């Protein structure tokens, strides 16, 4: 639905040139929630602003449902933008307008008649759960409510894509979850494509179907969220995944289990999707002559299914341990023998 080819943005200043977005190519499917994650300065905010040309690309093409956005003249671009909603980290509501009038604003711009606006705004207010707050001013709302207004406003002209620029970064964890739930339900209800920029892995885990990891203007890795989570390839992706998995912070505590001794090994198991539900450990104990000592474990839900991590210590004959590892691998669960702790 959205095809991005070789997208680039070069900022030229007197003293230096900054390649904010560097030759990014991606395809985003109709109805998916696509996440873009990166540390600040990675170029992800510039990237999303290139999509609706708030920033002019210096190279490449963006094709949305067959229309090349990059070549549209300004008046057609304005028309196209009405079908591309955007929400912001700091909400960007007009303080001088009530909730109702803020949501009506994009409809006014699109030239919708007053009675139709009335109806549409009421519908949107119900959708985002702000009934009863129509006449409030933004200053009277909490952060979460403000973002709900932002979402309603972005949806007013029935867009085919919703761009979220750090939409939850200014919210507390609980409110973040509420807003993410709302976005997921809108995605499902309206089959709306959502592109989401964030620096929080938690957000990607909770709502996204696919993710691209950005670093220094480039997409260093992209794919299904579950794949990136389980097998991060790039350094940046690994750091993000670690951030999320509390066990990764506690690797120090594994240290004392790791020995030179060949008859004990510490192994890390990755369970993905339905594997997470298998009673693998008891199968292993029944089949092989090994002792299994469970060290620590966790399970994380994502949009595409759960994935779990389990650290265990195996005690037994060297050859039996090797056989055990083979057995586990054959059962579809990923195994990693830990010999060293960072």
């Amino acid at each position, binding site marked *: 639905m959205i095809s991005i080819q070789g997208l680039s943005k070069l900022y030229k200043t007197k003293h230096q040139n900054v390649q904010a977005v560097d030759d990014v190519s991606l395809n985003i499917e109709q109805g998916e929630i696509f996440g873009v994650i990166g540390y600040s300065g990675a170029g992800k905010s510039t990237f999303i602003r290139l999509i609706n040309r708030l920033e002019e690309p210096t190279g490449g093409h963006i094709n949305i449902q067959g229309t090349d956005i990059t070549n549209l003249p300004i008046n057609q671009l304005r028309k*196209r933008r009405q079908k591309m909603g955007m929400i912001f980290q700091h909400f960007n509501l007009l303080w*001088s307008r009530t909730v109702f009038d803020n949501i009506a604003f994009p409809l006014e711009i699109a030239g919708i008649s007053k009675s139709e606006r009335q109806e549409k705004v009421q519908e949107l207010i119900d959708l985002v759960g702000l009934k009863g707050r129509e006449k409030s001013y933004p200053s009277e709302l909490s952060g979460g409510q403000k973002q709900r207004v932002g979402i309603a406003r972005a949806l007013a002209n029935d867009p085919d894509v919703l761009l979220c620029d750090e939409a939850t970064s200014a919210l507390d964890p609980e409110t973040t979850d509420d807003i993410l739930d709302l976005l997921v339900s809108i995605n499902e209800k309206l089959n709306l494509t959502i592109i989401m920029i964030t620096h929080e892995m938690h957000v990607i885990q909770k709502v996204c179907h696919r993710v691209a990891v950005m670093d220094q203007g480039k997409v260093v890795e992209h794919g299904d969220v579950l794949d990136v989570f389980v097998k991060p390839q790039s350094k940046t992706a690994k750091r993000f995944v670690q951030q999320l998995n509390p066990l990764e912070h506690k690797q120090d505590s594994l240290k004392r289990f790791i020995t030179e001794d060949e008859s004990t090994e510490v192994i890390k198991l990755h369970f993905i999707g339905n594997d997470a539900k298998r009673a693998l450990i008891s199968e292993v104990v029944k089949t092989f002559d090994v002792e299994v000592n469970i060290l620590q474990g966790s399970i994380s839900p994502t949009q595409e299914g759960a994935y779990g991590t389990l650290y265990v210590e195996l005690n037994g004959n060297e050859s039996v341990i090797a056989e055990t590892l083979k057995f586990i691998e054959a059962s579809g669960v990923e195994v990693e023998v830990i010999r060293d702790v960072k």
Partner: protein
Amino acid sequence: MLSEWFPNVVMEDMWDATYETLYMTVISVIGTLILGILLGLLLFLSERGNLWQNRLINSVTASAVNIFRAIPFIILILLLFPLTDFLVGTLRGPKAALPALILGAAPFYARLVEIAFKEVDKGVIEAAKTMGAKTHTIIFKVLLPESMPALISGITVTAINLVSFTAMAGIIGAGGLGDLAYLKGFQRRDYDVVVASTIFIVIIVFIFQFIGDYLSKKLDKR
């Protein structure tokens, strides 16, 4: 008691002069509002990174504004005599003061307008752009309403300046309370007339300030 303290004050003259002062102030405030907002918009929009980014327009406007602000008002009136004569057809009376009043106050107000626009959240302007808003929509539906409290407190300050400008204009024959204080008070050594005129001017200033504060507060929903 009043006639005891103010033996030379003729109330009829006071009311006439007050009317003239108010006439000059109100008309010039309206003129300043229009001209000042136009100039302020031009200054703001032609700035680097804004909607009509244009170096030439920006520097020409900025220079004009700075030059007019640098000229002392009393001298501006003299400089504008030919223009006034051409526009109004006379150099005496409240009407003749209007061109100088407006040209004297508008550049000052233009700067206040520019500052008010700069205070408008850039993100909100950006949000309007993402909705496909045209420039005039951004001006009328975002910039102006979002900066309204600052625009109003700015015009209040300017209006009070204008009251004192009218008094200066009065001294060279524009009428109003300044004229009254100078001609019928100071020159005849009837100081009670000077004091009475001052009191009237102070009251006018207070009323302007009160209205300005009230409106600015009422419109501010932040």
